[in-house]
């Protein structure tokens, strides 16, 4: 079948969303790890920052990333008419 311009736009938006979320994932994981010894000098509520990110912060952000992705994609599906029918 032939894909329309709308379809391509949907896919481009998906790619952009994926790239942005992946960048956030990369920063909260690897950038924080790389600078962990320095970031640990910042202490919030008793937690050294890099320790906090590894033990909780990054995990919370992962959950939010996935929540946002499913929310936004399910919206995009409807906007571009590629959603599945209801049961």
């Amino acid at each position, binding site marked *: *079948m032939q*894909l329309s311009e709308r*379809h391509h736009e*949907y*896919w481009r938006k*998906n790619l952009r969303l*994926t790239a942005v*979320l*992946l960048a956030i*994932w990369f920063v909260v*994981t*690897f950038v924080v*790890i*790389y600078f*962990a*010894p320095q970031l*640990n000098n910042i*202490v*919030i*509520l*008793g*937690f*050294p920052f*890099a*320790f*906090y990110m*590894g*033990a*909780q912060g*990054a*995990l*919370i952000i*992962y*959950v939010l*990333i*996935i*929540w946002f*992705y*499913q929310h936004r*994609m*399910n919206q995009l*599906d409807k906007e571009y008419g*590629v*959603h*599945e*029918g209801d*049961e």
Partner: protein
Amino acid sequence: MTALTQSQFYQQLKKYYTFYTGGFILFVIALAILEQMGLPPKWVGYIFLGATIALYAGIGIMSKTADVSEYYVAGRRVPALFNGMATGADWMSAASFIGMAGTLYLAGYDGLAFVMGWTGGYVLVALFLAPYLRKFGQFTIPDFLGTRYGGNLPRTIGVIAAIICSFTYVVAQIYGVGIITARLTGLEFQVGVFVGLAGILVCSFLGGMRAVTWTQVAQYIILIIAYMIPVVWLSVSHTGNPIPQVVYGQVLQQVTQLENEFNNPDTAKGAAEASARAAHRAKQESLEAKIAALDAAVADGTGAAFFEAQRTEAGNPADFPATIDALKEQWKKGAEGAKKASGPVSAHATAFAGKGAEAKARANPDATEADIAAARAEDQAETDKKRRNFIALVLCLMVGTASLPHILMRYYTTPSVRDARKSVFWSLFFIFLLYFTAPALAVLVKFEVYNNLVGSSFATLPAWVANWSAVDATLMKIVDVNLDGIVQLAEITIGGDLIVLATPEIAGLPYVISGMVAAGGLAAALSTADGLLLTIANALSHDVYYKMIDPKASTVRRLAISKGLLLVVALFAAYTASLKPGDILFLVGAAFSLAASAFFPALVLGVFWRRANYLGAVIGMLAGLVVCMYYMVITYPFFGGVPENQWFGIAPISAGIFGMPVGFIGVIVGSLISRAPSQEIQQLVDHVRYPSLEGDIDTRAA
């Protein structure tokens, strides 16, 4: 139940599992009352083991099925929330449940690689795989490879890689089941393995994925309750705050303060530690002198006489080593242990600590500026190496998570692409509950040990310490090395698994909670083992038998073959586990690196790069797998490798850091040097990218 609509089905499930959760809590309360009335702990253990396995068996029998789609993908109508719970149980193994908090206790920040690696991988599952695989909608991961890349070779490589990763992993789970069963009931380990195996098979044998899904939901509920109750109680009793994840920041500060005291010989605590460390150092030196004397005697040819003299001197005990080599090995181990215990305490929250060479050089009055600079460079090199390994491990665990077939398979079971996306969110949410509690538990227990155990007198040890050191010396060993009658940190040896197992007692809870924790560990191990066994059996029965050997096989025959293989694989895995293979933890880690190298590039490029084709997939998967295995073989002692062969000092467990890029390059180069994939395959790519298209092809399996 087939007549129900999806939303009625969902309501009904919610009702069932709410009743079930309430029932489980009542069951625990009833047992607690019985315990108060004098039921012996051993019986509490038996009842927990019997009742939970009977429960899983009941669900397994109720879910029996003769329908192919029910057997392989639970009829594709598992609501997102419940698939999330099932994935959580599938994912969290005995290692997560029992071992994670212990690893964090022992390694501090450096142990967080596992916490991040085993959760962040779900971001990759959500963004790159789950929705697309769900749209593709068949039964196994090799199915996708076989269809997308056209041909049996990619499918076969997929089957082999799936079996390699899943089998090493399932052996570790069955091993865990054996240990927990043995602990809960006092049976022999080998008997425990086969009792546990029965528990695994009753869930999966009759109903395949359908039965496994509904038992995994039940197992998740038990394991999360079992994990949370003791931690919350511990937090309330020690800090007055019922939310351990919030309050442990302050506890961590106190721990850090105590660590500083222990390492400062000018304080009272530090001086006591210094004396205990000195005793360890003396022991290390005496053992090293003995080893030297033994070597000298062997060189003179008087080794045998020396050995006999040692035996007589030791009072001729029955457990004296039988040979000179064994004696030397024992001394060496003792010297290493003493050396470790004689070092300073490492700080819990410090990332990538160096060797402490600079501090040592500064303490030495003869050290010149150049010596100190050299020591500092040595510390920096150690820090850099730890950081490199930490990053490599996190990446391998994450990508491995997103490549393990038993996890990806779960996203075939949701009713729609939309639900698959939602389901990844629920999966990570349910996993997150346990993983963000584990670091809190580690710190709370550490505070208990540093603050209450250290400094107490050997005559009046806390009850939990006395109990556990009597039960199992590998978990808790405490020796008054400097003979002052007071416990110092350097005198305590703790095995990682102790942390979770002993928490109920530290928190002052009755034995029934300990039984519940063991049942939770059992649920974690059983659920993971079920998912893995099903993956292996399905790869063999569906991909090898049905797709390649006999595509005309009848439904009855396919299911019979599948169940037969499940039984064979399970028995073989249990047999392997009963041999107690020593390097089991390494093998589990290796499964992640292997999966990451073999599957991830071909799966992701298969969706995101239209041009990827047959030759690319074959080259990429093989090259990734081979590089990863080659690196393990040349660097890991178990396979005859030596650490000197390491590239950039990367540990063999993170071999995937080399396998993954090679896999990606392989797929890209292989695809570019051969023709673009056919029109049908390009249509397939469009098909998986859009949840619904007009005039679309249909790849769903019946």
